[in-house]
């Protein structure tokens, strides 16, 4: 039986297989803009392995977490930039 976790992304509840990365959960909501650069340009995951820092989002109130390196947990609150 595949276990699942539920998290909230920009106020919308998302169900994911346990062990999924937050970046995948965000993709599932259809959002491609994870964050904005200093000049307001859209940014999203590039390397998928923790090096480029382009996939940063706010997780449980902590800004600039790399979503490609963070495993989804039940009740997690994730925010991307507008």
């Amino acid at each position, binding site marked *: 039986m595949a276990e699942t976790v539920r998290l909230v992304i920009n106020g919308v509840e998302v169900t994911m297989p346990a062990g999924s990365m937050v970046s995948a959960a965000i993709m599932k909501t259809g959002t491609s803009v994870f964050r904005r650069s*200093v000049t307001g340009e859209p940014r999203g995951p590039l390397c998928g392995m923790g090096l480029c820092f382009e996939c940063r989002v706010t997780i449980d109130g902590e800004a*600039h977490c790399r979503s490609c390196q963070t495993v989804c947990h039940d009740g997690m609150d994730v925010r991307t930039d507008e």
Partner: protein
Amino acid sequence: MTAPVYDVVVIGGGIVGAACAAECSAEGLRVAIVEAKMIGGGATAAGMGHLVVMDDSEAQFALTRYSQLLWEDVREELPGEVEYDACGTIWVAADEEEMGEVERKQRFYSERGVAVEVLDARALAEAEPNLRAGLVGGLRVAGDSVIYPPCAAQFFVDRALQRGAALFVGKAVQEITLDGVRLRDGSVISAGVIVNAAGSWSPSLTAGVDVKKRKGHLVITDRYPQFLRHQLVELGYLKSAHSLTADSVAFNIQPRRTGQLLIGSSRQYEVNDTTVETGILSRMLSRAIEYLPGLGKLSSLRAWTGFRAATPDKLPLIGPAVAQPRLYLATGHEGLGITTSLGTAKLLVDQIVNRTPKIDVAPYLPSRVPAHG
């Protein structure tokens, strides 16, 4: 003898040289700027851009205040990348002794027409919710502000160029001569007046200039736009930073327009290499975290070092060099050269064209330093 090509040659394209060049060209003088590396790439790129009125001495107050008003005059014209931010300063008092200092400062500034506001513990917590509990209060100086200095240096160089100045970038001055400068490539720029604005490098061009390097570390964080509102400086600074010999750190943090936080500060003497030293860096960050516990969870992007050009009496050298009257110095601005660049430029030009300056120049004249060549 042929007439010099330029009225003034300014050595150094840091904020001080840039401001002096802009002011000289505004006066109608023919100006050349010589910068060995890049505009605003020396101490100007390394430091914090806190435009701050200071009260260590009457002379320091006079120059910082005069300069701050000049910044206010120009602020509307500064391009966006200068990131002018009228965030104000809060001097933070951690104990009753430091609160006594808040009151002394309050009197000092008020008597001299600078608007300040004493904050009690609660008002301080409201002004900066991320400060730790248990602090006693602070002094808010609303007129202080923050800029991004290298872009300001570029702005003043551009102004000088618009007024007809010539720019020599990537050209190092090898030697100051009686009628100009000789560059490292052997060419010569002739000028009626030479201005040594080479910051902490100025002694290498003019023997006897008593300017020493005082190393500082800085750290910049990622963007946390809600974290901080004012530039915060601890008053424990008075106990630590004024030591002229021992290394010291003090809590000093600046909110950038980007939402980034610029964290200082450290002071070291007799260290001439640019290496980021983990020992003093971690002392500096621990001090900052003592004041702002939440800082420990934020991510930093980069740490670097820079050199202040320090004089023995902590005042800059602005005016004719003793041994060579057509050579002017505009150096030795220690940790305040971004602020005082504009006042420096005015005082320099007033002396060059023989006009009475708005503030007394005597405290900044190079001739005050006995050992000066």
